[in-house]
């Protein structure tokens, strides 16, 4: 095979080797790292790929749609001379795209000359605005104990069969910018948008979200990027990036408040592992590549607010923990990057609690900056710490009770047990359509805390006890 100096748009005929979705193209020079290629098989069908590694005479290409039907001599590869870009436009809201940003809904290509690199660029930390505005989701376990802020990335750690989709849909339906309980409601309408990316999820799941967006009347504000379970896995590596590229455009150039839902990150990571494996890279934990952390960070960190724009990106990635193991590399590395996590608990789910949010392993790191005086209510921070502490102690009591029996417990510990049950039934539990104000959430919490003796409540201030504590030994 003779050397061909490839100009952008020129084709190389024939490839050197094909293994799974990876092929090695020989004899092409002037190829750039991370360039997009167009691959034409023997029948003339087109698919796309991307250069993963480039040497003087050979380059390694990843084929998004997989290599089925490609042959060594019958394949033509055209190097497009640019990194992967997708069109971005406001008109993309209300539309459905595939994992690479091509229309799936039969509509035309978005009409724009604005094409953005799917890899994005890192936000300069000096250009960020620290998130401080809280989003009221109407869900007590989130608003009260794991408050979500605008510009935060807060994943849902779930397991197979748990209602993470319902929860995400409910958040989307109910989310409004929270206001302090004492502030008048602002009549200002802000521009919001939802960008939804599905990676390797079932058709049912995609349809569920679609229906849910339709029911809430939000469909015209939603752009969907779908790479479903039967779509090529390699395309999955681009799907969340394509979605985030649109989100960045909407947030930072159109000033919208964008909520991005990525589901399911575990499938994404598996696709990454597959490619890494075929390339013969040195694996780290459970076969995942050593750069999984950096790779995930390159997506999760595309969240936030910047000084030059009104808009914001809030991310809710959903991931299913294989065998509910939170130490599995995918949830583990995610937890190290994201600003907290909403963890769903199998036991709560079994006892019919919805949403089954396991409060103790859940966390919102940014919560402290979005709640309290002038934001939610002055007692909120200590109220939250107290509920956490009491519920954590209740867990100890519960395990003790399972050994020695409930009757053997001291009087105070019995109260803790009652508190724990009520906490799960009345605070965590709520219906799919119940939209609680922050005021309601706080007062349910105080009602539950009032089931405990006053001197157990050491996290809240004495003034707060005086004002809100309604237990037997309350001051009258």
């Amino acid at each position, binding site marked *: 095979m003779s050397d061909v100096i490839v100009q952008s748009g020129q084709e190389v005929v024939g490839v050197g080797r094909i293994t799974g979705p990876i092929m090695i193209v020989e004899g092409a020079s002037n190829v750039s790292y991370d360039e997009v290629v167009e691959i034409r098989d023997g029948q003339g069908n087109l698919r796309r790929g991307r250069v993963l*590694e480039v040497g003087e005479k050979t380059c390694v290409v990843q084929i998004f749609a997989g290599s089925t039907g490609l042959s060594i001599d019958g394949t033509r590869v055209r190097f497009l001379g640019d990194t992967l870009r997708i069109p971005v436009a406001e008109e993309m809201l209300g539309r459905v795209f595939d994992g690479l940003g091509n229309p799936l809904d039969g509509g035309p290509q978005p009409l724009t000359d604005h094409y953005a690199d799917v890899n994005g660029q890192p936000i300069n930390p*000096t250009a960020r605005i620290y998130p401080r505005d809280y989003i009221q989701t109407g869900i007590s376990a989130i608003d009260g104990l794991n408050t979500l802020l605008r510009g935060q990335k807060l994943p849902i750690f779930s397991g197979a069969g748990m209602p993470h989709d319902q929860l995400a849909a409910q958040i989307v339906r109910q989310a409004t910018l929270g206001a302090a309980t004492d502030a008048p409601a602002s009549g200002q309408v802000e521009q919001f948008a939802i960008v939804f990316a599905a990676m390797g999820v079932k058709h049912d799941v995609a349809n569920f979200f679609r229906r849910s967006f339709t029911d809430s009347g939000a469909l015209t504000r939603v752009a969907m990027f779908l790479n479903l379970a039967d779509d090529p896995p390699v395309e999955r590596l681009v799907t969340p990036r394509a979605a985030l590229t649109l989100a960045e455009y909407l947030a930072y150039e159109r000033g919208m408040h964008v909520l991005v839902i990525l589901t399911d990150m575990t499938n994404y990571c598996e696709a990454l592992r597959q490619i890494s494996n075929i390339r013969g*890279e*040195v*694996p780290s934990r459970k076969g995942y590549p050593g750069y999984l952390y950096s790779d995930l960070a390159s997506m999760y*960190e595309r969240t936030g607010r910047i000084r030059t724009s009104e808009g914001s990106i809030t991310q809710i990635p959903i991931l299913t923990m294989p065998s509910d193991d939170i130490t599995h590399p995918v949830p*583990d590395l995610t937890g190290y990057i994201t600003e907290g996590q909403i963890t769903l608990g199998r036991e709560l789910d079994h006892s019919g609690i919805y949403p089954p949010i396991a409060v103790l392993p859940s966390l919102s790191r940014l919560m402290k900056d979005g709640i309290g005086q002038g934001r939610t209510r002055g007692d909120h921070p200590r109220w939250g710490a107290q509920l956490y502490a009491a519920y954590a102690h209740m867990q100890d009591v519960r395990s*003790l009770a399972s050994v020695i029996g409930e009757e053997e417990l001291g009087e105070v510990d019995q109260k803790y047990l009652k508190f724990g049950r009520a906490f799960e039934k009345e605070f965590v539990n709520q219906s799919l359509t119940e939209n609680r104000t922050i005021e309601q959430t706080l007062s349910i919490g105080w009602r539950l805390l009032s089931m405990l003796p006053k001197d157990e409540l050491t996290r809240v201030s004495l003034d707060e006890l005086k004002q809100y504590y309604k237990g037997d030994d309350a001051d009258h």
Partner: protein
Amino acid sequence: MSEQIGTVTWISGPVVRARGSRYVGMLELVEVGEERLVGEVIGLNGDIITVQVYEETSGMKPGAPMYGTGLPLSVELGPGLLKSIFDGVQRPLPLIEIESGSFIGRGMRLDPLYRKDRWKFTPTAKAGDVVSRSAIIGTVMETETFEHRIMVPADLSGTLSWVAPSGEYTIEEPIAKLKVGNQEKILTMLQRWPVRKPRPYLNRLRGTTPLITGQRVLDTFFPVSKGGAAGIPGPFGSGKTVTQHSIAKWADAQVIVYIGCGERGNEMTEVLQEFPHLVDPRSGRPLMERTVLIANTSNMPVAAREASIYTGITIAEYYRDMGYHVALMADSTSRWAEALREVSGRLEEMPAEEGYPAYLAGRLAEFYERAGYVETMNDHIGSVTIVGAVSPPGGDFSEPVTQHTKRFIRCFWALDKSLSSARHFPSINWLDSYSEYLDDVAEWWQEKVGKDWLKMRNHAMELLSEESRLSQIVKLVGPDALPDEERLVLETSRLLREGFLQQNAMDKVDAYSTIQKQIRMLELILHFHERGLRIVKHGAPISLIHNLPIVDTLIRMKSLIPNEELEKMEDIQKQIDEQMSQLDAEYR
């Protein structure tokens, strides 16, 4: 200075190979491609040069030129470092923002230190003085209260032939001339030092002064001495960053170097927005004025993340050499180790444990050994204390980075997820943590507070470990089965946990405790135990002791009694005595 030394032949992410000159040095700084992306030579094999590039390499092609600089990767040192925020290879992020907007562009070549500022230089040496390496020849007020000492470069010595008169100079203007042998060198306030080479000092001394952080669990229970090295390992959500921030805010060091290595962007923004508004209790100036920030967040190029640790420690050593006490926070060393692993993987090196290269332990040792309490070349005393966060996957402390780190630190602050889940902050597990500096700093405590700190501390630790043993029994049979003396241990331990170890970083009064307050609080809780033990022996039931109003007071005293009003503690002691005596009288 930069001539073409080779031509790129292969590109894979941050690793690039080129064919070219055999005279390129290992660890030399090079520029790659027309965009002149900065990189560092990490391997040489015949005429093949392997380079790690500190920027995104998308779009680069084989055939692109590579330029040499003849210099190793270095940092710029001089007035203007404080209050700055740099990326991992010391590019100033605020200027990058001005140049390329909210997103970090590529091929940005910016001077780390601002060239045009004029600094008021006051000479302290004169022409004719024979000066050794790092000798101080003048001073500059870098902030209103911080004296930046201008030193002869650490690799030069000789006779000063001229020193500039007092006046305002930029960092590039000559401020002295130094005769080295027959050569005359022009000295400016701006110096460079290669990041991978530790700066020299005269002697290493035993550090006997603790780094006081105002965090009770650290200062009282697990102190780190100035010049020591401490590790904070913990799973996600266990409060590593909050602890690091607290130390950066309150530590009694004169200079803080904070390295955000592969962590969240919002966290760096938080520091950037918060520190200018927080006041250093010692100098009365904004905390930012003693801080240098290095931010290489997780989505910034991975090779620059590897460099960020060295950039930070070199700056820390520079201030140490002026005779200052410097504390360096690295959050997180695991991300740095992962950057090593990623580059190693691309080089197809043989992996050791979990894919990490075999030289991981060596690199960690080199880094932690750059901490130290030293006599500087100019006869001052200075120190660098390193506090490194470790992020073990799955919170498993047996993984390689945690294990190797443990070999090179002497203070281990183990964070515990179950404590943070129960909102016990700082969630440092008192049973898994240790400090080997206890004996080193005991004398200092004795001098400062006049009390036997170590004895009290050890007594409290005994109670806490006794509690852990007893709670095993409680889990099996319930608390009622224990004799009252042991239940008192549980009660006192609860006071220690909730009243002493827990500290609320958000509470104005509680966020910082002076050592006087710490020792007094500990004393009161132990006094409660001692009195309680006596009356329990006389037959007073534990349930009544539990219900004494003083118990609640002891738990709340941390936020009720400010550092300046410690005399109120006397009142608490009186209450303990009164309430105990009264109870005692009933059961005697």
